[in-house]
């Protein structure tokens, strides 16, 4: 059966029918698509399907192994949950774009060659931008445009790399390739853009918070995890990734703590979580790759859960600014509860999903004697707890009462959040089913005394610090919450760093941008002077002068032939 319709394509093709269905029926239909896709995956034999030859190159549209299957499962589950969450939405554009996006991401995960991967890769880019544009504001339009340009650029790099790869090796198979050679570097860059590597990451924080309430939930699950999958497939054990990943875990924390838009905070913490996975890929042992895969799995769930709860808040209150919210637990008790589950998971509390996956990566780092990396990861874990575990639920639902009284989230949102929260806890309590799905055999017990105690110490200490500060009234009001963290030195360092960045970084940056803008403007003006409708290159010429050109070229040719 799978030979006829590759996974992913079910959703893409199915989505094309969606616009003609009436509202309610369409939503039910959309619900059926991921279920159908998931059913197609179950019992799928490992191997290559749909191989065919184009221009003398072997393409493999579908390659099934444990790694692709794991991502295939979680993508389908995330799709299903996102659709449930979006059931109240009757927007055709979002319905189709969401499904095509998910379908492309799934197709990409199963792609066995670089060209198929490229096609789906661009598919995710083009489809997902409509989830941003669907918000239909000027801001969303320009953010979407920037997002699209970067995503397409990533695709172009991938294609360029693929072509070079063919030229170098004569094969299009998508497998471990490593960084040697221009081809590998280009492909690595393409993946890196999508994975939001440091300095290539800005599109994520720029675009995700501008998408629609439901769109962000979709977006958070697929694009970056597709990149994680691609990196795990193509660049496992590349040492540079350890450093990239470690940077990724640490630096977004600085931004996340000073950010007021709570969905943007989540976007930063998304980046930080990706860092853990990238480190896992970089270490490249069986344990660490298992950790990456498991972390991607649980991360998709709790990150979606957090975005869902913030989406519900945005939907009901119309704002997502930490400074304007607070006290919502009275109006939205269920959402509050689910958000806390998500927060606990991302902070890796024992018995929650983050714990059982993140500890795989941490252990792998320790076993590989990457001490510095291990410390950075530990620091990042604490940072996560600060900005996602405490900041998000605290400012949205508790803190000072903003006086906002609204309705609880719509029932479909609650159902989606409920299922996701259940999965987060279930994975945390019974990790074995997930471990069984991982690419390599797992010989790991998350619940050892050391693991639990270490983690609890980390978490309880910062919770304690938080509580003490609240009691004594030292805890600053929302906007300056920047200062709170469990580690005193870090507490001192951050405001200084943030202040430094604010004071010196911004003017310099603005000056640089202004100069660059001026240069570009001047360049375009010059281009326009020569190429614009009135420029010499575009004007209608006098017939005589054209004829002169002919004579000129003839002369040149003649001279060339005689010399």
């Amino acid at each position, binding site marked *: 059966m799978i030979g006829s319709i590759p996974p992913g394509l079910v959703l893409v093709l199915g989505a094309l029918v969606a616009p003609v269905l009436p509202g309610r029926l369409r939503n039910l239909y959309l619900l059926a698509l991921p279920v159908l896709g998931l059913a197609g995956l179950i019992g799928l034999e490992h191997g290559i399907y749909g191989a065919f030859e184009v221009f003398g190159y072997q393409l493999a549209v579908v390659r099934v192994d444990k790694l692709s299957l794991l991502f295939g499962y979680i993508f389908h589950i995330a799709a299903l949950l996102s659709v449930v969450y979006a059931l109240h939405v009757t927007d055709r554009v979002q319905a189709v774009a969401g499904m095509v996006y998910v379908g492309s991401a799934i197709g990409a995960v199963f792609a066995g060659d670089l060209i198929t991967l490229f096609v789906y890769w661009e598919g995710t880019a083009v489809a997902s931008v409509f989830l941003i544009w669907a918000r239909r504001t000027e801001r969303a339009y320009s953010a979407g445009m920037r997002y699209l340009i970067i995503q397409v650029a990533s695709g172009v790099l991938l294609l360029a790399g693929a072509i070079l790869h063919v030229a170098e090796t004569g094969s299009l198979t998508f497998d471990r390739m490593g960084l040697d050679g221009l081809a590998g570097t280009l492909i690595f860059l393409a993946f890196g853009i999508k994975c939001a590597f440091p300095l290539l990451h800005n599109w994520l924080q720029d675009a995700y918070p501008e998408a629609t309430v439901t769109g962000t939930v979709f977006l958070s699950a697929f694009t970056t995890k597709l990149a994680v999958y691609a990196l795990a497939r193509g660049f496992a054990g590349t040492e540079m990734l350890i450093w990239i990943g470690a940077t990724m875990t640490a630096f977004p924390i600085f931004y996340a703590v000073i950010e007021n838009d709570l969905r943007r905070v989540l976007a930063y913490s998304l980046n930080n979580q990706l860092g853990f996975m990238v480190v896992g890929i970089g270490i490249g042992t069986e344990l660490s790759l298992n950790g990456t895969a498991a972390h991607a799995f649980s991360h998709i769930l709790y990150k979606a859960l957090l975005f869902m709860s913030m989406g519900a808040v945005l939907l009901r209150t119309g704002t997502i600014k930490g400074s304007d919210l607070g006290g919502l637990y009275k109006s939205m008790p269920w959402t509050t509860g689910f958000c806390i589950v998500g927060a606990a998971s991302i902070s890796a509390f024992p018995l929650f999903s983050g714990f059982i996956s993140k500890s795989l990566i941490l252990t792998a780092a320790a076993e590989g004697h990457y001490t510095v990396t291990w410390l950075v990861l530990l620091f990042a874990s604490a940072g996560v707890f600060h900005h996602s575990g405490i900041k998000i639920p605290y400012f949205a639902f508790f803190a000072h009462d903003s006086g906002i009284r609204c309705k609880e989230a719509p029932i479909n949102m609650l159902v989606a959040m409920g299922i996701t929260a259940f999965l987060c806890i279930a994975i945390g309590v019974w990790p074995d089913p997930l471990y069984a799905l991982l690419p390599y055999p797992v010989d790991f017990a998350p619940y050892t005394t050391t693991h639990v105690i270490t983690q609890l110490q980390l978490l309880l200490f910062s919770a304690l610090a938080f509580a003490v500060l609240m009691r004594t009234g030292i805890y600053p009001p929302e906007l300056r919450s920047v200062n709170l963290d469990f580690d005193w030195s870090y507490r001192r360092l951050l405001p200084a760093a943030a202040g430094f960045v604010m004071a010196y970084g911004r003017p310099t940056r603005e000056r640089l941008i202004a100069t660059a803008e001026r240069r570009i403007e001047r360049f375009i003006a010059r281009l326009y002077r020569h190429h614009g409708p009135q420029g010499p290159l575009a004007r209608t010429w006098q017939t005589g002068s054209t004829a002169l050109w002919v004579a000129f*070229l*003839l002369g040149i*040719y003649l001279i060339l032939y005689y010399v």
Partner: protein
Amino acid sequence: MLAAHFPALQVVLPLLMAPVCVLLRGARLAWLAALAVSWVAFAIAGLLLAEVLIGGPLSYAVGGWAPPWGIEIRLDAVNAFVALIVAAIGAIVMLYAPKSVEREIGNDRAYLFYTAYLLCLAGLLGVTITGDAFNLFVFLEISSLSSYILISLGRDRRALYAAYQYLILGTIGATLYLIGVGLLYQATGTLNLADLAQRLPALEDVRGVRVAFAFLTVGLSLKLALFPLHLWLPNAYTYAPSVVTAFLAATATKVAVYALLRFLFTVFGAEFSFTVLPMGPPLAVLAVLAMFTASIVAIFQENVKRMLAYSSIAQIGYMVLGISLVTVEGLTASILHVFNHALMKGALFLAMGCVFYRISSVHIDDFAGLAKRMPWTAAAFVGGGLSLIGVPLTAGFISKWYLVLAALERNMWPVAALIVISSLLAVIYVWRVVEQAYFRPPPADRDVREEAPLSLLIPTWILVAANVYFGVDAGLTTSAAGQAAQTLLGSAP
């Protein structure tokens, strides 16, 4: 029996039907006649290509006079393929013609259009299939003279000036070509292309032959609008009626590319053209200049038809670039692009015709909200535009892919990079239109659905579908183009 005369009939039928159209007078009758002839020519071209691909080159002696004294029609994989492109575009454009002609030319003058169109078709097919250098000139003039008429049929008065300018420059090009042929005749005493090819290698150092080569290449470069000899093209394409633009853009320059290929590779031979004489670098430089300059000019255009015209000049750059590589892959890419570009530009200009039919303008500001007013037309433009950019799964991707591979194979990395970068320029100018059509609201007084009639939409969408089809299943075109390239380089019969 009849099948033996197919090569001649292909040209003779439209040539004879042209005066008949004048006699018929009525717009409808003339159209039916032109339509019938176009489709017969298309069918013949298809049959001939199949025959050539399977059975090898065909030779037909016109009037029973044996070559090299008589005129020979000689078909091999190269020109049979080009003839098929010309005939196919002609057939589809004729389906499209009646409504658009009624609107843009008027039914009272429609018979003139059909007459000139048939002459032009005959001329283009003649140039393609003839095996005789002088005969090629005659057909070139037939097609050129009729295309001056076709262009001047445009309603805009600037069409007259455009036609006039094209006339002057086209004549200069044809004259240079004729001088070249004359010089060759003086040196070799023959006009038959195959015969010339046999005699020329011995005369490599004769000064006249070299001068002839220069005259021929410049003359043909002018006809194919190689930068900087493209100056006649933008106005001609912009102000001609939509049908004419679609037909000429998809065929006329392609035929000139073919003629250049024929002379560079078959008559003079790749050895003489590219090793003895340094033809490669100047062609490559001009091609790259065309790709960039014309694309950038296209970005700044306000008139969408004119924008597409400049884009054509850039696309011709790709074809010439492929030629300048002098490898089987490069030539394959060129010939593929001749075919694929005919498909995409045909589709785009036909979509322009649909727009003009309803809105009476192709200015970019008037495209605002087009997707709401004419969803199918706008979608067709997007389809053609994607192919123009070279997005995978469209025909445009296939030829660019081959071109990049060909450049890489010669280890010309910078050239490959330039190809990719110039494709990005295409993204910009296509996107400008898409943005207007899809993201700007229509003007308040025109916020109604007013799709073009089906008789315009169906031919347009046939070409869009062909762009997708030949992007997904490229086996047919690549094998034909590959065989043509091998024929030209003499590595196949």
